[in-house]
Each structure stands twice: as C-alpha cells, then as structure tokens.
C-alpha cells in the first residue's frame, strides 16, 4: 500500500513538473527564440557572402558550420535552459516548495526537479534544432558531394553523412541536446545556493563559456579525445573516438546524462541545506 502511494506521489510530481514546463509560455518562447536565432545567423552568413557557399553544400554541412563557430552553441545552451532552470528558484521564492516538498518528501522533490530539468532542456533543444533542420531541408538538400568533400572535423559521425544524412543529423541533435542538459542542471545547482532568477537564467551560459575557455586554453592538450567535452558536445572531433558509431553515440549520451546527474547531486545537496536553513 505504501509503495503504491509512493509511486502515485512520484507520478504526481513528475506530472506536475512536466506540466509546469510544457504548459508554460517560456517553453514555447524558448523554442521560437532558438529557431529565430539559428535562422538569423544562417541568413546573415548567407547574405553577407562570407566564407561558405551554402546552396551547394546541404543541411548537414551548414548545420555543422553554424555550430562550430562563435556564440551559437552557447546561445542555444542558454535558451534551452530558460524554461526549466528557474524551477527551484520560483518554488523557493513563492513559497510553493513548502507545500510540494512537504507532501512528497524533500529528497523526492529535489530528485524530480533534476529529472524535470534534464527532460525539459533536452526537449526544448531537440525540438528547436529539429524545426531548424526541417526549415533548412525545405530550401536545400540534406547533403551534396561538395558538402561531403568539405566536411572537416569528420568524427565521430561524419562517416554517415553520405549514406544516412537524416540519421547523422538526428544523432548530432540528440548529442547536442544531451550536452545542453549538463549546463542546465549546473544552473539548477547554482539556484540552490543563489535563488535569483537572473543569476540562474544566465548561469548555464556563463559556466559553459568559462569552462570552454579554460578547456581550450589550458586543458585541451592534456585531455584525451573521449574527455574533450566541448567538442563531444558539438560532435566535431579531429580524431576517431572508439571507431564504432553506435558505441560513440551511446558513450557521448551516457557521459552527458551522467554529468547532468552528477550536477544534480550538487543541487540536491545544496537544496537540502537550503531547506534546513543552513544557507542564508
């Protein structure tokens, strides 16, 4: 009887969290914003006639270029975290946390916040990137011979472009969406210590930027390929990972979900302390 009640509360919590995310206008705003930013960047590069001849290379190639240069991945990380990362912060500031955690138990409430954060970020990034891919697909083919010939940083999935361009694109989107969850949960972890909406919203972007700079400038030379997290996230490696596409795909996603859960434990620890009034 007790186990059944626990399951029911769990389902209730997950349902509430998912409803909070999917029913909020922030979720749809984030998706639209991400698609618009991707489209703007794409159009600006196309119109400026900068370095790439877009029309003859195809979706896979242009998607890669958008993600390899500049601020784009950071902005998508920031936007995909927006609908979910402030979940704890809102509950704490409105006092809703007393009701929810009191009913479900503190640990369970915290764990489900982490799961909701991971799921929400993943879904937001995945939908936004998929819509963008479909929009690009309307105006250009998935890949062309010129595109395949010009695809640098081929690993780990580049070999699939020629035969299975849709699978290639799908895998990249999933990997990047998993990558976004890591930074989003890190932002959530910070919210346990600083429950300020602005700080929490921006934290995923700031943490990602700072970590990437440190990695590129100080660590990159000493770290093996399978731990090059920024490059695994945007799936642009110069050397093979394990040599098997499926294994590489699984490894990347398990690594990111593992990192997200590790960040989640920091959140649970901090949030529990906050609930016990140990953090002011």
């Amino acid at each position, binding site marked *: 009887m007790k186990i059944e009640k626990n399951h029911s509360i769990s389902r209730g919590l997950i349902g509430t969290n998912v409803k909070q995310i999917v029913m909020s206008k922030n979720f749809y705003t984030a998706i639209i914003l991400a698609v618009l930013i991707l489209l*703007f*960047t794409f*159009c*600006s590069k196309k*119109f*400026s006639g*900068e*370095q790439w001849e877009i029309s003859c290379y195809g979706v896979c190639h242009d998607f890669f270029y958008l993600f390899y240069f*500049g*601020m784009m991945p950071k*902005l998508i990380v920031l936007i995909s975290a927006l609908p979910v990362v402030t979940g704890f912060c809102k509950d704490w*500031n409105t006092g809703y946390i007393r009701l929810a955690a009191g009913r479900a138990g503190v640990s369970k409430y915290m764990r489900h916040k982490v799961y909701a954060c991971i799921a929400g970020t993943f879904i937001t990034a995945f939908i936004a990137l998929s819509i963008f891919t479909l929009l690009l697909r309307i105006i250009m083919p998935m890949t062309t011979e010129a595109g395949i010939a010009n695809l640098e940083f081929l690993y780990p999935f580049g070999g699939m472009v020629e035969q299975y361009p849709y699978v290639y694109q799908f895998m990249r989107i999933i990997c990047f969406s998993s990558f976004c969850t890591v930074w989003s949960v890190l932002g959530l972890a910070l919210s346990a210590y*600083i*429950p*300020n*909406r*602005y*700080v929490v919203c*921006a934290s995923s*972007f*700031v943490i990602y*930027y700072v970590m990437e*700079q440190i990695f590129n400038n100080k660590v990159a030379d000493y770290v093996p390929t399978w731990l090059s997290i920024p490059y695994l996230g945007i799936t642009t490696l110069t050397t093979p990972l394990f040599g098997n596409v499926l294994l590489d795909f699984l490894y990347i996603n398990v690594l990111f979900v593992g990192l997200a859960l590790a960040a989640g434990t920091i959140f649970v620890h901090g949030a529990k302390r906050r609930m016990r009034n140990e953090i002011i």
Partner: protein
Amino acid sequence: MKSFKISFAVCMQNLRKWTGDYKVLLVFVFLLIVNHYHASWFLDFSAGLGSKTGVAPWIFVFAFTGWDFVKIMMLLPLLMLFSNAPFIDDNQPFLISRCTRKSWCFGQILYIIFGSAVYVLISAFSSVLMLLGNIDFNTDWGGVINTAAKVAGTEGAVATGVSNKIVYYFSPFTAMFYTMLLLWFACIFIGLVIYVVNSITGSTGYGVFAGGVLIIFDFIQNMMRSSKLGLDWLSYFSPVSWSSIDLIDITGKRVTPDITFVFCGYAVLIIGLSVLALRISKKQEIKVVQDV
C-alpha cells in the same frame, strides 16, 4: 533647482542599489564575456600575423560595426539592466510620498541616463581589459587593426566589423569618442522605450520585448545592408543602428543617415520619450514589482 536635487537623489539611490544587486553583477559579467569573445578574434588574428607588438586598445569601435552577434550581445545585458523599469521596488512608494511624482519620474529618467553612461564606460573599459598583456599602447590604429582593415571582406574580418572606412576616415580617439557617445544615446533610447512601454502596460515583460525588437531590427537592417539588396534606407528607421559609426554617411551620398540626422534623431526621440514618461507618471499606478 530643489526639484532637480530631489530627482538627482532619486537617481543616485537607484545607482547605489547596484552594489547589492545580482542582476547588475550579471550584466557586467555578460559584458566581460562578450568583450572577451570579441577581443579573442583580434588576439588570434594578431597571433596569426606573428605580431609581437599586440593589439591597439581601440577594438571597442568595431564591436558595433560588424554583423555578427557582438552588437546584439553587447546590448542584450542593457535590456536586463532596465528590465524592471519604472523601477518600483519596495522602497519606491515611500520615496514617491516624500517627493512629487514629477520629480520622482524625472529621477528615474536621470537614472536611465546615468546608468547608460556607466554601462557604456564599463563596456569600453572591459574591451581594453580583455587585451591586457597584449596591448599595443598606440595613439594610432596599430598594425593588427590596419592589417585587418586591409583584408576586410575575407573570413572573420567582416564578422568583427573592421572596415577600411573607419580606419581611413577616423582617428582612434575620434572613433572611440563617437562610438561611446552614440552608444550612450542608443542605450538611453532603449532604456526610455522600456520605461514608457512598461509604464503604459503595467508589466515588466512588454518593455523588454519592445527593446528586444529594436535590437533585432538593427540586426536585420545590418543584414539587409550587407546583402546589397538596396535596402540601405531601412537604417533611417532603426535608431539602434545609428550607434554604428560605420553606418554614418560621411561621403554626402545620403544613402544612410548623416551625423546631423543622427544627433537630431536621438535628441527628438529621447526628449519625446522623456516627456511621454513624465506625462504617463501623473496617472501611473504604483505597483511594487518584486525583481527576483
């Protein structure tokens, strides 16, 4: 004079609140990141050239002349800074009861003006800060920027906005002065738009949205201009774009706004919005907004 002193006190009180505000801290962290991102291109370019002298500290000028995200990212933190306009927190009802509505509202406008000035100064300063260790203290543009201007049109140089026009027609001091001045006007304009829209709608979301639209319109205008589609006249309707000295017409062709148009345009918009804000404040509902 007494009324102005009261307004100034209101403004200074708002500025003093910055020290304990996470949001403001974050705005400046964002500025540091954007400036770092912008400076890193110059540093990479300098390293690629094998330059041992470093980069001249005038790269701030080029943050507002390229089509990349740098300009948007420089202005987005400003939306965050003024997002809670008309800045009615717990303390403001007590303040309003001690001074007239008019003085209070004028104080808030002064806050936008001074806040924007601090924002611009910190932006410019942080762009220099990001070059520390690689600065070529030079009153000229320096080798790296000159070379970047010569290869403008090739990869990267377009993105950072290093144009021949600026390097050829402006001295570094003039370019910095005009960039900072025009950016200041643009920031005041955006701040006042947020203030007025938020005051009319009674919410904090619509003002930020309106400010965002203005910034995005600048991006679209810039994109259209570089696309050579013949839509340069769009720049006349994009006040945020007037902050790019690259856009200002100095050849007399009048395809884009000249400096007189820009100054007059900003003066009309800023004075007009300030008058509107003062009028709205007379009947404005004082609704305390918790900014967390």
